[in-house]
């Protein structure tokens, strides 16, 4: 659905986006990650035809973003960073204006705006000027305007930025609900969000693509992946450390800061150790408060790939 062919953007000779290539099949939610200033927003602005690439191009729904810019824009719903809108208009006026510019008139306009009113829970503020709304509501209005023409592709630039935890949760639910029939790119630097809703992750740093994978695969790269954390009822730590270190597949054993009776056992790359560890525990009849296998930490992988 979205194919990116070597996008490059330079501002005054400075390369902000450098030869990006990736594609997103229909129906996928792609998390677009990177540190601040990595070129996420610039890439999104090129995909939505706001900025022209210096080199390269992309196709959305088979249409070229440079040659068929108007057609591409019809396919896309876009939520720009911090959801700008015309503050002096009421929510209804604003959404009906967007509907008209999206080519919806008369009955279709009314149907479309009522649909997004319900989807984005805007009933309570329907007639209020947008400038009087809270940030959460403004973000929802931004969502509503991106969805009003029921686009095939959604491009969302930091959709949960500046929202409180409840609002973040709502927005994520909204995105997950739409995932069935839409292709979605969302940028964020909240990693738990990616774990929660994205099927795929693209990480860029200094304009270059540094990772393109699924959240699970990325977590496998974490040293924490498949590590086993144990909390003992009594203090067997020193004995346990020795026993665990003698297991073949174990690379190292660490104390857990703040927990006097806990250890974390790290496996060698690519191996699982939970069976071996639990066998040792059983054979020694140690009483455990907790034992769990770590999935890995996205933030650790994120740091690793963006700082190297």
């Amino acid at each position, binding site marked *: 659905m979205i194919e990116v062919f070597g996008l490059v953007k330079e501002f005054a000779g400075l390369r902000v986006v450098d030869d990006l290539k990736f594609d997103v099949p229909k129906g996928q939610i792609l998390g677009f990650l990177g540190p601040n200033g990595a070129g996420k927003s610039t890439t999104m*602005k090129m995909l*939505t*035809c*706001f*900025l022209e690439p210096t080199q390269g191009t992309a196709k959305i729904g088979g249409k070229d973003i440079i040659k068929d810019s*108007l*057609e591409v*824009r*019809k396919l*896309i719903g*876009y939520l*720009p*960073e*911090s959801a*700008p*809108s*015309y*503050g*002096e*208009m009421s929510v209804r006026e604003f959404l009906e*204006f*967007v509907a*008209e*510019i*999206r*080519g919806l008139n008369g009955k279709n306009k009314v149907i479309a705006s009522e649909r997004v009113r319900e989807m984005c829970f805007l009933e309570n503020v329907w007639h209020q000027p947008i400038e009087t709304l809270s940030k959460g509501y403004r973000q929802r209005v931004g969502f509503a*305007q991106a969805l009003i023409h029921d686009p095939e592709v959604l491009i969302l630039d930091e959709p949960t930025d500046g929202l409180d935890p409840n609002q973040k949760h709502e927005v994520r639910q909204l995105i997950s609900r739409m995932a069935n029939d839409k292709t979605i790119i969302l940028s964020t630097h909240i990693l738990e969000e990616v774990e929660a809703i994205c099927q795929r992750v693209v990480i860029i740093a200094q304009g270059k693509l540094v990772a393109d994978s699924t959240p699970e695969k990325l977590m496998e790269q974490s040293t924490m992946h498949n590590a086993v954390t144990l909390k003992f009822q009594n203090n067997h730590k020193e004995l346990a450390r020795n026993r665990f270190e003698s297991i073949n597949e174990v690379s190292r054993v660490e104390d857990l800061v703040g927990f006097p009776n806990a250890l974390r056992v790290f496996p060698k790359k690519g191996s699982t150790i939970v069976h071996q560890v639990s066998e040792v525990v059983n054979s020694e009849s140690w009483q455990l408060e907790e034992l769990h296998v770590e999935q890995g930490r996205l933030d650790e992988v994120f740091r690793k790939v963006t700082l190297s």
Partner: protein
Amino acid sequence: MNMFMPLFKREFLGYFRSPVAYVFIVIFLLAAVGCAFFLGRFYESNQASLEIFFAYIPWLYLVFVPAVGMRLWAEERRSGTIELLFTMPITVTEAVLAKFCAGWAFLGIALLLTFPLVVTANFLGDPDNGVIFAGYLGTFLMSGAFLSVACCTSALTKNQVISFILGVVICFIMVLLGWGVFTNVMASFLPATLIDFISSLGFMSHYQGISRGLIDTRDLVYFFSVIAFCLTLNSYVLNARKAV
């Protein structure tokens, strides 16, 4: 052109969504009528014509039109909605025309509201209404030319104040170019043909003909050319500096 209407409607109604439009109209009417009556001595002149009124209008427009136009693009830049606008299926040309026409229609309404002057002149005497009509036409065209300059300066910046001041300065130059006092000064050191050329570039030489009742095609062409030139420049500026 199907995206022209929604944007035109939004921009035009946008003027009336805030009290600024009403304040603007009231001040414009007070100033226009005030100039004609107090500075121009409309009554004392004992002439049943609006010539005095039309003589002051360019100077009022110098301040008022850039004030109407300053918001058009600068506000889109400041609030970031320019990104929203140009990721919708609308071309830069459509957007430029829609905004310009909305501003122009607003100026037209403000101008039409000076109609009590026409009524007064007709009540007190027997003016040539053809000349008055020509005067209004000329004034409206000139306001379009002023506005196209203001649109252009508005597209350059996200700061409305800068946009306003730039607009006033450029419009002032356009008015000065054809103003008698200014051309007299230039006449002391420049050849006459050059002065004619320079003053023909300014608004005044074209406006004065129409406002006295002479509708000359060349003057109409002049105003439309200024508008077309400025709006083309406006589109160019937007294309070149969208993200700034």
